[in-house]
């Protein structure tokens, strides 16, 4: 059961890319099963068949001497069948592969996103020629349904791999290189993705989510993401902002609209609008957030976020502030 973390299976395709591969899988599976049953049946028959006394002669002999010409023909036939099946496999493979690697239809209309892998989170950027229209967020990718999305991938440290199985197969993110992949989500929903190249201690908990929503809703989301964070109205959250800016938070995180501008960790400008924290490891609830701030190392040992000793009052204020970052 997948509750808050999203759909995550190559067998539950929700886009044209994953659907094609799913079709290919069904073909492969059925052909393989047929081949397997045939070969094992032949093996069982050869092993267990009743033998005439002449056939059961224990004197060692070359097999070819005992075998009739029919056996040789059978082997040649089986080999030819193998070659043919492999040939069909190649054709089907190419037929599936070409449209997958080809640029998406409606090329110019595609949404462009840049995703950068970090140990162990994902930086998501919606580029724009106008700096004020750029959107930077983390670990959660919003896309409109029914529109191709081209993702440019790179990494700042080690090799990661971008993989939302319900939408598209994986593509490695290699430092010093740019790779790309495209997908399209047909149905609104939350699709989980996970790093698929071993990248160190928290490879297991380096996940992201793709939230597919109708175009209007997506545009609304984009508009909100472009905004800077509002200065909180209530006093507790205001004090939380002070805590944020006075402690170690500010060393790594950005909250646009405040002096906090470090790019080492995820951008927190609209943290409260996200579904999860800690790269898809925890639901974005107050309790989880508090636990994550105080003791991230017991949730994700080795993560780059240090443990923080914060007075309980300050923590409550900080949580109130972070929850105000809608």
């Amino acid at each position, binding site marked *: 059961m997948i509750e808050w973390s999203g759909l995550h299976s190559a*067998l539950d395709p929700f886009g044209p890319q*994953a659907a094609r591969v799913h079709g290919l899988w069904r073909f492969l599976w059925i052909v393989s099963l047929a081949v397997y049953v045939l070969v094992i049946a032949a093996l069982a028959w050869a092993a267990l068949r009743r033998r005439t006394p002449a056939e059961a002669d224990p004197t060692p002999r070359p097999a070819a001497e005992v*075998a009739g010409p029919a056996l040789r023909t059978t082997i040649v036939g089986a080999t030819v069948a193998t070659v043919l099946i492999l040939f069909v496999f190649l054709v089907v493979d190419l037929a599936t592969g070409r449209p997958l690697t080809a640029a998406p239809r409606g090329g110019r209309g595609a949404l462009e996103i840049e995703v950068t892998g970090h140990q162990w989170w994902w930086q998501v950027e919606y580029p724009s020629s106008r700096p004020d229209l750029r959107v930077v967020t983390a670990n959660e990718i919003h896309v409109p349904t029914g529109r191709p999305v081209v993702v440019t991938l790179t990494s700042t440290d080690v090799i990661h791999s971008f993989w939302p199985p319900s939408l598209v197969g994986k593509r490695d993110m290699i430092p010093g290189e740019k790779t790309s992949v495209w997908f399209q989500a047909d149905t609104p929903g939350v699709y989980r993705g996970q790093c698929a190249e071993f990248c160190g201690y928290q490879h297991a*908990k380096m996940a992201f989510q793709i939230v597919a929503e109708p175009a209007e809703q997506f545009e609304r989301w984009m508009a909100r993401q472009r905004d800077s964070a509002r200065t909180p109205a209530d006093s507790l959250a205001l004090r939380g902002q002070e805590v944020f800016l006075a402690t170690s938070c500010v060393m790594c995180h950005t909250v646009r609209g405040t002096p906090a501008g470090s790019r080492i960790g995820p951008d927190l400008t609209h943290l409260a609008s996200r579904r999860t924290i800690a790269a898809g490891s925890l639901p974005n609830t107050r309790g989880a957030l508090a636990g994550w701030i105080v003791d991230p190392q017991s949730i994700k040992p080795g993560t780059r976020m240090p443990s923080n000793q914060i007075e309980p009052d300050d923590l409550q204020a900080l949580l109130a502030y972070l929850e105000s970052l809608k």
Partner: protein
Amino acid sequence: MTTQAVRPGSTATAPDEAEVRAALDASWGRPVGLLGWISTVDHKDVARRYLVTAFVFFILGGLDAALMRIQLARPENRFLTPDQYNQLFTVHGTTMMFLFAVPVMTAMGLYFVPLMIGARNVSFPRLNNYGYWVYLIGGVLLYVSLFVNSAPDTGWFSYVPLAGPGYTPGKRADIYAQTVTFTEISALITAVEIIVTVFKHRAPGMTLNRIPLFVWAMLVTSFMILFAMPWVATASLFLAADRLIATHFFNPAEGGDPMLWQHLFWFFGHPEVYIIFIPALGMISSILATFTRREVFGYPVMVLSLVATGFLGFGLWVHHMFATGIPQLGQSYFTAASAMIAIPSGVQIFCWIATLWVGRPRWTVPMLYATAFVVLFLIGGLSGVMVASVPFDLQVHDTYFVVAHLHYVLLGGAVFPLFGAFYYWFPKITGRMLDERLGRWQFGLFFAGVNLTFFPMHYLGLHGMPRRVYTYLLESGWGDLNLLATAGAVTIAASVLLFILNVVRALRAGPLAGNDPWGGETLEWLAESPPRPYNFAFQPVVQGRAALWSRTPDAPVVVGLRTDMREVLVTTVMDAAPDNRHRHPDPDRMPFVAALATGVLFISLVFTPWGLPVGALLLAVPMILWGWPNEEDNEKQRRQERETVT
């Protein structure tokens, strides 16, 4: 000159066998004591040590896996930390590939190739001994590092930049690099041994088309080792240099390239699979022939398939890198090549089924294992064809689907035949029989355990579970199948325990085997069980492809080699016609000392570049003494020993 020198002797010239044996026992014996033990040059001694050591590493690697399976049995389990888990999965993979699979396969070759071709020993016996000690040092290095919490933790594939100096501080990845170096040295030595032995030491009459299939398999494997292992050795040299002396092979900011590592590694890594798998094919052919009482169907086709697999194995490496974004044309080529390698494998399976069909099968434990090979390997082979497809691979690459695939290939395709081979050849190695009833239980448990552990993993992978994760979320829904897999791992462990029990019982009180308990086809069954250090009192002359089955009662034997010292017959490459006599080395301690010096060299290279000159100087001493003839001294010593005994 050659042919005239060989006199097809009359029927009355054979010397008395008892006398010959006594003389050979004296000249081929091993010195006593610990020093004698380390100085052995007998291929069987060395191979037995390889086998036992590799089996110990198999158990250690299995324990690594068991700990991983405990950790993964439940979601969000806290049995292991990610640090420990990463070390364990790295050591598991490195152990199974470098310390178990390759050495155990080549060790079977080292033991049985000389016996099967009717030779007295391998070509370069001291080098052979050196190779074993170097391998042992490499393995001990890895496990010492694990026990002091310094084991490599970047995977057996050790991708940069993660394994580079920037992201793995300390010495963990350096230990990986040097472990690889040690095992590659040993594997390369074994490959040269086997190739030259097969080329130059075959018994007279064993022309190319009479070479047993197992020997063909080992020959192909050795050639693959020769051309594949230098790639990973060089790659690990680059890695060690990047980490120790700040070279930039893998640093993209200075013109290096992380992809260089992947190409170098997989150009070795893919042939590696066939290096493990091809000897297993040879084992199956041996077992099948003996227990069906038929020479394997289609000998030329079988040999060609082995050779074709050897060649094709080098053309597939990129299919491990589809997710990195290889150009479309390249992808299609590698898909086609990967699919093509299914053809020779298929042909061999068909030929075996045909042999079984016309044969008179006896369902001993080795036969059960050989048959299970087809049942299991076929699953791995078919899923292998699936992952050759780029679009499909992009979904399942680096997921548990691939974990399932590779374990079906390596366990089904290599470990099952290997266990069959253990049961089959155990009587030859030890002189005693393993218990059939225990063997059947062991087989059953192993078969069930492997399927229970690895079959569910196909499903897990398709449902998105990536490899190399130390845990997974409760929400993922992967918990139940993981628990099942852990139960399977327990079953495998029980089976391996049963095997150890069987071996211990057989060694203590197993029934004596005699020379030829199974009615075997090939020459090893002509020798005693266990064979004497010189293998055969008189080297046999081969009269047909099934060396023993075609042997006539009046088959000629080779005489005229000296018995007062070690001398072996060298034959021609193609026709195995007697060509010259070679003075065979005596036991020597220097290979052991040289291995220690090699150990100092490479282990100190983990810490300082000065390890190279210092280690090289250290190594020079035993190497010079090794090159210096010591036969006369040995002769003197032997005489003294004999005098003190009498």
